[in-house]
């Protein structure tokens, strides 16, 4: 597959076209009808959840949120490939992968409501918290890769970044370390064309992002990130390769952020409606839906029914979260150190004395 889609020749792995028609049958991942519908439903769930969180933000019930709209196929395909023991090193726009790894909706709500508790990931195995400093997390992926190899474990780490993140020095360091150390890490660049307002052509003069792999002596693949089958085929192949060969892989998933960078961003300032319309044709859900409809596996009626179910469940869990979350003073203090220094304890005691005084004045 790496030879067939040589990034130096700017080839891109695709399985279905914009109308859901299969264009490379031999690459179509082995999936039962049920599995296909499940994948689609996962994308639909991610999209529904994503829309709902944006609307909660508009209602002032959560803080800033980075939407996944348009990029659902990448996270969902990643989630389908990652096993319980595999590591997920997120950036912050991989909702489908988080959910598949066991991050709960309530945790996602809590995080966006402003509680670190949302990053506890109590039921998920081997997921690092979301990382805000761009690309810095990729190096953690390389370190996890070293630990996997050192401990002789059958695990793979998958680390995410955006196109803007490839300009950071940490992108270079992460790929370089992973290349030198020969560790099982899949670096995934969600190339959604923009880093907030800055287009990808202002980030790099390379032919594409996947080709950067050549410089690190690792394999690279450019994949249609809006084609769930292509993403799944690429991830399955890369996962197998990383495990068997103990080598890193760079995957560029070409996609488009249909939403804003975050809820604080207004994309109409830096891109045109024409461009958005062009990308609408490549929408990952639309394409898979057209494919499934042709196979009589999905319908509008089914979509409407399922979406309503999702909305109800999401809203129920959101309201439950709103009612139960709390942020006691000690939570602000007790996690900075594994072993709390006496001085910090003293600071807490001093503050509590102030609170007692304050309450007595009421």
């Amino acid at each position, binding site marked *: 597959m790496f030879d067939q889609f040589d990034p130096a020749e700017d080839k891109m792995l695709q399985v279905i076209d914009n109308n859901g028609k299969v264009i490379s049958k031999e690459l179509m991942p082995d999936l039962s009808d049920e599995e296909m519908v499940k994948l689609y439903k996962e994308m639909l769930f991610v999209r529904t959840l994503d829309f709902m969180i944006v609307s909660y933000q508009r209602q002032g019930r959560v803080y800033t949120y980075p939407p996944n709209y348009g990029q659902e196929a990448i996270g969902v395909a990643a989630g389908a490939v990652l096993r319980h023991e595999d*590591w997920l*090193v997120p950036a912050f726009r991989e909702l489908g992968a988080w959910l598949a790894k066991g991050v709960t909706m309530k945790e996602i709500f809590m995080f966006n409501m402003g509680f*670190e*508790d949302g*990053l*506890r*990931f109590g039921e998920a195995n081997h997921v*690092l*918290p979301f*990382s*805000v*400093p761009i690309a*810095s*997390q*990729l*190096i*953690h*992926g*390389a*370190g*996890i*890769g*070293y*630990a*996997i190899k*050192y*401990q002789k474990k059958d695990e793979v*780490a998958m680390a995410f970044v955006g196109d803007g993140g490839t300009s950071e*020095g*940490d992108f270079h*360091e*992460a790929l*370089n*370390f992973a290349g*030198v150390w020969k560790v099982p890490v899949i670096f995934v660049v969600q190339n959604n064309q923009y880093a907030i307002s800055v287009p990808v052509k202002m980030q790099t003069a390379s032919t594409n992002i996947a080709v950067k792999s050549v410089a690190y002596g690792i394999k690279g693949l450019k994949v249609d990130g809006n084609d769930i089958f292509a993403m799944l085929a690429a991830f399955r192949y890369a996962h197998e390769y990383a495990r068997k060969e103990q080598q890193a892989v760079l995957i560029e998933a070409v996609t488009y952020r249909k939403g804003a960078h975050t809820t604080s961003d207004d994309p109409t300032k830096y891109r045109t409606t024409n461009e958005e319309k062009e990308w609408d044709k490549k929408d990952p859900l639309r394409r898979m839906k057209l494919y499934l409809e042709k196979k009589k596996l999905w319908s509008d009626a089914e979509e409407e029914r399922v979406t309503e179910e999702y909305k109800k469940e999401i809203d129920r869990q959101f309201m439950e979260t709103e009612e139960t979350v709390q942020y006691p003073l000690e939570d602000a203090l007790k*996690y*900075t*150190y*594994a*072993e709390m*220094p*006496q*001085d*910090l304890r003293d600071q807490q005691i001093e503050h509590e004395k102030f609170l007692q005084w304050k309450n007595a004045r009421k």
Partner: protein
Amino acid sequence: MKAMNIVNAVNDALDIKLTEDNNVVVYGEDVGFEGGVFRVTEGLQKKHGVERVFDSPLAESGIAGTAVGMAAAGLRPVIEMQFCGFIYPAFNQIISHITRMHNRSRGRYKMPIVIRLPYGGGINALEHHSESMEAIFAHIPGLKVVVPSTPHDAKGLLISAIESDDPVLFLEPKRIYRAIKQEVSEEKFSVPIGKAKVLSQGTDVTVVAYGAMIREVQKAMVMAKEAGYSVELIDLRTIYPLDKETITASVKKTGRIVFVGEEPRSFGVGSEIMALANEEAFLHLEAPPKRVAAFDVIVPYPRGEHHYMITPDKIFYAIERTIKY
């Protein structure tokens, strides 16, 4: 017991931890094959293997960042930054991840990482090789900052640092790497993090110092003794968390305090010691707390370094002025 200098003591502590804990890995630039530019890790790769003691690519952010991943996956990495002035590319990983992952994950991922950092001046080195910027690191929530002044403490503190579930910046006073020899137990022992040590009892003034400055203060104390002054010397050993109790008790006893550090004076470790004396022992003070520290400038190149470095007579001058205030 065996005669050890600080280089030997650090090597011994690493050897002991590598031997008893398979999760300990030691790496950095030139750390493996060569044993480090100061030969601190000499022989460890041969004894413990290339998977456990190794050379990394030349990239400080990469070294610190990979330690985050390793720690999350259960290892206890001991990383080396070759010189104090080379740590800044790693600063983002230290301040954004190493010191925050435990809090961010609500305790799920501990970060038992030790960052070894040869620091300090007085060795006629190039720019970026002589600075003492420990205050920057002591200011970071989530980090512990440790600095030994003797071979015994270097060994015991490093063992504690490696066993700590919190990240520790382990400053090594390279000026005295080989200057002091001491009989140190070859057995495993630890020196607790967060505990200062009263090196000399005295009644007239408390002097607080650490690292390579201890030796300079001790030279000044010879002058002080001749002048008839009784100096109590406290070796901080840990900068953060600061042993407030030991310092406060001493200041209450002597009524005077002088801080000695080779760091730039403003907003430094010394500033914190001054604040502590004022906050905790105000009514016991018979003279204003005094700092003897370096200028707020870049460490001059070797030919100018003597203008910058803290000398015993400069320390004595401050001691005398404080006592005679």
